[in-house]
């Protein structure tokens, strides 16, 4: 079942929770709605579900406007952040609830219902726990019961609101893998909300990045990560170094260092956005950024260093795997030259902070350093 959103607007009093949202989700896709809190992602999910109603715009399920279809008839599976399991029912009764309440011919026989519930419990790897009560399960198990319950009604669309938000890091990772596999098995069109970029990038076919009630970028994991449409997206997807630069034709100059050329030919101030992990050590005769190492710290498999740019004194963060051959250069007080392997250049952020300030525009991006 494909989903199309057209010009969705939602206001809570004076607050614009969502403005002009357009989105098309193909049948069978796994989509992440990613954004900081207050960006409107949960509201959007709830509007698709029918738990919330838009002030303007339309939602189409498979080309059909569902404005008049109430929640209970939309055939969506909704998984709540805090599971919302029915505490007074056993796990099996929870899972089969959607079937048991059906009326007349639509309702399967008792033995069919039980069999279906047990199949679903097997699918979510909880066979044998059907007679337990929710309070006897761990958080991860509860979340899987909630999923099984949502899948029981054979939903056309599966919607998950911060599905792993309340779980600890290890369980969260396991469930991510598991959800990905489950999605491949069932093929149900799935949208999930998260504020965790790692989760979104790891799970989703496409990521919808939201900010301030608008869609900041839609794209595949590679697209949003490597071609962020705005500084906000760049910043939100991971840690970021922001370095002011001068643009002379197609040269980028930081202080006295000419660091690279880029695809544009703008002139004037700009800001380079570069991730700590996209910086490497250059040989002395390459172009690059001269800097001195201030301190080095290893956290597990990653070595993190703070370096100061010689010409401006600005501190820049560098990360690399601890077995990388450049790590040997990362010693305190060591001088080195940095290569910017991959970066984005945006117009200088000289507009005042405020709602009407235009987002700086992406004007260049380079994968490889060019001489």
């Amino acid at each position: 079942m494909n989903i199309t959103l057209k010009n969705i607007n939602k206001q809570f009093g004076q607050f614009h929770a969502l403005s002009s949202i357009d989105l098309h989700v193909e049948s069978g896709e796994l989509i992440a709605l990613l954004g900081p809190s207050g960006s409107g992602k949960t509201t959007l999910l709830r509007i698709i579900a029918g738990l919330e109603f838009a002030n303007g715009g339309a939602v189409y399920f498979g080309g059909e406007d569902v404005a008049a279809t109430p929640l209970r008839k939309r055939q969506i599976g909704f998984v709540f952040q805090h599971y919302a399991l029915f505490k007074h029912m056993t796990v099996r009764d929870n899972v089969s609830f959607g079937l048991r309440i059906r009326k007349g011919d639509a309702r399967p026989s008792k033995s069919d219902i039980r069999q279906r519930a047990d199949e679903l419990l097997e699918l979510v790897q909880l066979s044998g726990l059907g007679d337990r009560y929710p309070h006897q399960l761990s958080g991860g198990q509860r979340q899987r019961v909630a999923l099984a319950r949502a899948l029981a009604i054979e939903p056309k669309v599966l919607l998950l609101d911060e599905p792993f938000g309340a779980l600890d890091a290890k369980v969260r990772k396991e469930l991510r893998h598991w959800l990905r596999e489950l999605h491949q098995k069932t093929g149900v069109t799935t949208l999930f909300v998260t504020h965790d970029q790692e989760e979104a990038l790891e799970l989703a076919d496409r990521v919808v990045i939201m900010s301030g009630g608008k869609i900041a970028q839609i794209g595949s994991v590679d697209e949003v990560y490597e071609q962020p449409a705005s500084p906000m997206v760049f910043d939100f997807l991971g840690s970021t170094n922001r370095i002011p630069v001068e643009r002379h034709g197609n040269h980028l100059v930081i202080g006295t260092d000419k660091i690279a050329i880029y695809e544009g030919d703008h002139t004037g101030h700009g800001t380079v956005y570069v991730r700590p992990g996209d910086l490497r050590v250059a040989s002395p005769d390459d172009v690059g950024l001269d800097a001195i190492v201030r301190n080095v710290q290893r956290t597990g498999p990653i070595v993190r260093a703070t370096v100061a740019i010689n010409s401006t004194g600005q501190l820049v963060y560098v990360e690399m795997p601890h077995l990388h051959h450049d790590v040997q250069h990362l010693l305190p007080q060591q001088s080195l030259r940095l290569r910017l392997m991959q970066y984005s250049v945006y117009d200088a952020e000289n507009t005042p902070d405020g709602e009407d300030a235009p987002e700086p525009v992406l004007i260049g991006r380079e994968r490889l350093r060019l001489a």
Partner: protein
Amino acid sequence: MSSTTILAARHSAVTESSGVRRLLITAALLFLLMFLLLPLISVFFEALRNGVHTYVDALTEPDAVAAIKLTLLASGIAVPLNLVFGVAAAWAVAKFEFRGKALLVTLIDLPFSVSPVVSGLIYVLMFGASGWAAGWMADTNIQIIFALPGIVLATIFVTFPFVARELIPLMQEQGTDDEQAALSLGASGWQTFWYITLPNVRWGLLYGVLLCNARAMGEFGAVSVVSGHIRGETNTMPLHVEILYNEYNFAAAFAMASVLASLALLTLGLKTLLEARHGDSLAKGQKH
């Protein structure tokens, strides 16, 4: 200093010394004994002072039986009605946003703040011989004041807050996620209420009903105003106790009082049992 005394000294850092503790506990126990336990025992003592025979006679005498029946009937009508009203009011307040919600919550509390005598008077003013509805009542030949309907109305008024007050915080705390989940699974509004909302609040509801029932059976002030004190007809148990007492028929008065006290003790016992077993599914911080 041995190690045990050091340990004892450390214990005393977080609590009072044992002397002060004993003194406080004794004071509290004595107070309870004098003001609560002794009067309660004396009720049963006075009731049985002239023998079990007198006790049974006092309770099986026709007027007494009528009073017991009337009390059971009045609370048997008032409590289920308040159960329905209370659940409806709590449902509305806890699950929906609407204009005038604060006013509704205040109104629910009104019977707690109004003197029961005033509550009774309200009905006399409305349905009495010279009340607002007097003409209509004469036309239809319906009697409310000095009859069962008046007693039931007064009881409903006085006991209205118990169920709603117990359920509102509980339902607010539980939120609407469970209901939304049920709806998304295809349940109708009625199925959602019956299978999800009601089971979620069942212990709180039972708790509220127990308190409501205890108050309904024991209500004196409001019922006294509307009942008319007709022996064998409109006398409830508390009113009957008063009449017997005023007639210096102490044994019978205490016999009836002992029945009321037993009902109260039973309620208290059930309430304690509920709190012990299902305390976590009752509203927190709202105990009456």
